[in-house]
């Protein structure tokens, strides 16, 4: 139980009769930015709260950086950096006081040493000029950045970030993405959830998809997309001009569905393997239809998640 930075084995969380997390097992190596994706109610936050030692699971084993969090909670808290969703800040403290308090709880030296670390963290999140402002006076995005600074304060080896980019403008998002990747390169393991899926796919070295408490797939973005994406491929073909003949020809092929024509551009779904697709496109190209270009569109994460959420509604 101590190979990866995050090791989860048979984790289950029940709320009465409701199963929020259903026997999931997961291993995240050191230095990864690992994404947790899923629709609302998938069990992401419950998993995060267990990992952050804020909640005891019904059963299961969890270790962070080799520390069993259920056996040795206080020691585990020294290596965890947790940033909750819609992270709150106290209304009666200034920015530097809030960070200094966290430096103090983690025993990061005397007043001068703590202040140096506070300044360093404020600089990372670009809030140095606001150090004497009240926490309550910050905007949503600034609050998120402040809580990220708090999370970084004690240099945790495992960071658990629940929706860290919510409320951030595009520039701040990009900065946060780079900051997290830099932390991972330095050896920290970052577990992150987000609803901005394209961003998550760009940010994470690997990810997993949860739904109704179950782990549907995990691996690199490409592996997850392959496993959960639609079986049919979406193909967009562009012809020299609007072509009725090609539409008639496409309709005769049983592997083709959902044909949509927009001038010289035709999109359709094709069911078949790679070889069948090559054969199909060769026929299309040599059929005298004036084919100019074609492009295959894979299932995006957005599609995958919508598919999963729609499946939930139907069931």
């Amino acid at each position, binding site marked *: 139980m101590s190979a990866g930075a995050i090791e989860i084995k048979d984790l289950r969380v029940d709320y009465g009769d409701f199963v929020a997390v259903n026997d999931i097992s997961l291993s995240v190596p050191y230095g990864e930015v690992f994404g947790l994706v899923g629709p609302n109610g998938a069990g992401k936050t419950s998993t995060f709260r267990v990992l952050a030692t804020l909640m005891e699971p019904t059963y299961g084993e969890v270790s962070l950086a080799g520390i069993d969090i259920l056996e040795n909670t206080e*020691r585990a*808290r*020294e290596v965890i950096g947790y940033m*909750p969703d819609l992270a709150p800040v106290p209304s009666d403290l200034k920015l530097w006081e809030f960070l200094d308090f966290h430096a103090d709880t983690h*025993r990061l030296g005397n007043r001068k040493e703590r202040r140096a670390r506070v300044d360093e963290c404020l600089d990372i999140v670009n809030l140095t000029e606001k150090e004497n402002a009240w926490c309550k006076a910050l905007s949503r995005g600034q609050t998120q950045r402040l809580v990220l600074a708090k999370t970084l304060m004690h*240099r945790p080896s495992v960071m658990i970030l629940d929706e860290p980019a919510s409320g951030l403008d595009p520039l701040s998002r990009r900065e946060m993405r780079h900051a997290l990747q830099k932390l991972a390169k*330095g050896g920290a393991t970052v577990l992150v959830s987000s609803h901005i899926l394209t961003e998550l796919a760009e940010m994470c070295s690997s990810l997993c998809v949860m739904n109704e408490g179950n782990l549907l797939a995990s691996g690199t973005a490409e592996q997850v997309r392959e496993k959960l994406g639609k079986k049919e491929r979406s193909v967009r073909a562009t012809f020299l001009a609007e072509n009725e003949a090609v539409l008639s020809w496409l309709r005769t092929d049983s592997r083709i569905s959902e044909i949509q024509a927009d001038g010289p551009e035709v999109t359709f779904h094709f069911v078949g393997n790679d070889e069948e697709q090559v054969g199909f496109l060769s026929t299309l190209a040599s059929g005298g239809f004036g084919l100019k270009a074609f492009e295959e569109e894979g299932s995006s994460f957005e599609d995958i998640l919508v598919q999963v959420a729609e499946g939930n509604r139907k069931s």
Partner: protein
Amino acid sequence: MSEELQRGKIVPFWKIWANPIVRRYARSRLRPVSLGGVLLVFVLIAAFIFFSIRQGAMGQGKLELMYAARLPIVPLLVLQGLILFMLGTGQVAGAMTAEADEGVLEYQRLAPMTPLAKVVGYLFGLPIREWVIFAATTKHLNAALYL
């Protein structure tokens, strides 16, 4: 990032002055502007109780200073009891509820401190302003006892 910062030793629970939670509330609840006004009000109330009872006993009751000065002891103890048990307890209960509502209580829960140190931190930290007011009104009690 994987290397951990040099951390100091765990502070024992009885070192109240070194408890991060006490220091956090000392910072937020003892700001001169907010503390000054409240402190002035309670010191004036204590002074009024002390002098009005003592002078009344000396004037109308014709008691000697030594005996007259003892009479405000009970009213002053009642005032200090109100400060600690009513205001202090109310502050602890109210602030804990507000922190739980805001969600910031979770940060304290995640602090790597022993449960006992956290309890001591809240017990002495949250009502720290009330402790200061209590201490400030004690001089009137001392005057009543030892004058």
